[in-house]
């Protein structure tokens, strides 16, 4: 029996989700970058609020990303110290 469109959509969504999950397992970096940018959506307004309007919204978002990059570098350096043979 031919599936109706309404029945096909959930199947396609599930297949897409499974595909994405498999791809992200192989290459986790894009997911992490995306999650970091999402986290910046929380961080940047905090920076903006902390500077009390002295900087613009663009500056706040840029500083948020810079802070995340700095934290990521620190985590990377910790990882090198704890598991140097990986590098």
């Amino acid at each position, binding site marked *: 029996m031919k599936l109706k469109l309404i029945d096909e959509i959930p199947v396609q969504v599930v297949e897409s989700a499974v595909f994405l999950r498999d791809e992200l397992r192989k290459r986790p970096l894009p997911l992490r970058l995306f999650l970091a940018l999402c986290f910046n959506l929380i961080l940047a307004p905090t920076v903006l609020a902390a500077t009390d309007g*002295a*900087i613009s919204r*663009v*500056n706040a978002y*840029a*500083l948020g990303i*810079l802070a995340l*990059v*700095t934290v990521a*570098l*620190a985590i*990377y*350096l*910790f990882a*090198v*110290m704890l598991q*140097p*043979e990986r*590098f």
Partner: protein
Amino acid sequence: MTPANSSTRTPSPSNQSPRQPRQRTAKVNTSGLYNRAIRDAFAKLNPRLMVKNPVMFVVWVGTIITAIVTIDPNLFGPSPGHNLRLYNGLLALILFLTLLFANFAEAVAEGRGKAQADALRATKSDTSARKVLPDGTIQEVSSTALRRGDQVKVIAGDIIPGDGEVIGGIASVDESAITGESAPVLKQPGTDIASSVTGGTRILSDELMIRITADPGKGFIDRMIALVEGAERSKTPNEIALTILLSALTLIFLVVIAAIPPIANYSKSPVSIANLISLLVALIPTTIGGLLSAIGIAGMDRVAQFNVIATSGRAVEACGDINTLILDKTGTITLGNRLAEEFLPVNGHSAEEMAHVSLAASVFDETPEGKSIVRLAEKLGATVDFDPNKAEGVEFSAKTRMSGTNLPDGQEVRKGAVSAIKGFVRSRNSANSDLSELDVAYERVSRLGGTPLAVCRDGELYGVIYLKDIVKPGIKERFDQMRRMGIRTVMLTGDNRITAEVIAAEAGVDDFIAEATPEDKIDVVRAEQAQGKLVAMTGDGTNDAPALAQANVGVAMNSGTQAAKEAANMVDLDSDPTKLIDIVTIGKQLLITRGALTTFSIANDISKYFAIIPAMFSAAGLGTLNIMGLASSQSAILSALIYNALIIPALIPLALKGVEFRPLTADQLLQRNVLIYGVGGVIAPFIAIKLIDMVVAGIGLA
């Protein structure tokens, strides 16, 4: 066969002559090396490769951020200063050049290794081989079709198709393709040291039956190629320790830099992101971070240039920390071609009688010592008066310490260690054993530093053969060098105590062990290691394999058995046991070079503080620290970073060549290196940064 030392030596030219200048592999073709290195320097900017070097990866991230603020200088907030785009662009360019120079250093080191690998590959050729099938017929196959366990026949003029063990025949082999030594080497089966052949070498005369011991791509030349190419290079323990230190320093400075903006803003002297990144790059040890891998690769190349195959960089590094060197006497400390010099008859026998019995005892002895006894006996008119086909040869063993012949008429003639022959004689003729003359002859030979071999027929002693051995010229000076470096030398020999003492005193070793059995070798290694020492030893026989495996650094001779080569972590293609001394020197040089450049890199920071900090915080009153009198804050920062970038290519030659090795004590070395690289590392940047600042200000860049 001699009982005195269980590893006998086939006399080869390299063992017989005084120490020759080191034979190297063929000169490699380095044309185009720098062009390729420049291309590779750009290719190494790939983040997947940069992430393996933590210090340079931080510089890489800093470069990208600086490039971004070149496009929009106020991206992270209002930035003080003028001509910010030009200034930030210059900073980004200098940081980019820092990365390129570091990658270039690594690429040059790798390029030299690749050129060496290409030269080695040229010695390999896809040759045809005469494979011997199970039914005895011969089939022509390609050398790449051969597998471990196959048997091949090679005749005069053929290239040996793969690494193997000689199981039949006797021939001269030209090993110059891999060792550079043009004098041929005799290969024959059954001996511990002359039965191993390497693929790519050429048979000059006669023929050999060879059992292949390595699959294609797994032979010694292939391992050497992989080693010098760096394809299988992983970080050594010392490199890992240094990487952890550099990462820790980088992390500390990253945290410090990250803490500066709030403090700077509070004190009303805000600092731009570009300046913060500049300060970070100036503080982190970029010099040693950029040169570390080049030093390691160059060290491995130096080992390969000495015709030594090391299984890993770890083995080369371990050489640098060696405390004790265990060396055989015969062939290592002495020339090794012990030849029969004289017959000393005892108990009323004449020299001719003794020659006759000695000849009978040596007729099945294929060793050089045995053949020299035969020659000396024949000079005295001795002949073989029995049918060798009806006689039975008795091989030497480390347990019996004697060899000989069981004659067709039932008599047993033996030659060997004096104590072993005494026991043999007593067991055959306990009532009439007059050993006093034997002891006198034995002592006389021993005091001359020779090896005494007693000869008997059944229960009758005939005398002592004097085997002469000569200490290699120049060996005493090398051992003095080792002593100054804090390395203790121990001589192991199966010879008697008196002979060992005489040779040890002449050669200048620190200690010796006489009448050593193969089990003693591993016991000596273990005893030294139990005291916390790192032990290096050489060996070539199957009975050396356990000790080679136990030692921290085991160097097997290429002419040795497969078992020895598999047990060791280095193989010397020249089969020169004294090469261990050169390898220890290279290992020490590697560690000293790393230490010196690390000291220099960290010492540089002091002068960079005096350049950048006053420039960045002049508004906060730190301008008085501008002791170099730099033109402006921008020129100071630019000058410090330009120096930071230029010092990397300036130190490439030192990194690749290595700090010159001096056989000094540890304290003297430390004092010397702290003076040159520590104090020099503080003073040199002051001068260099000032000069660069004058140029920068003069051009009007800042």
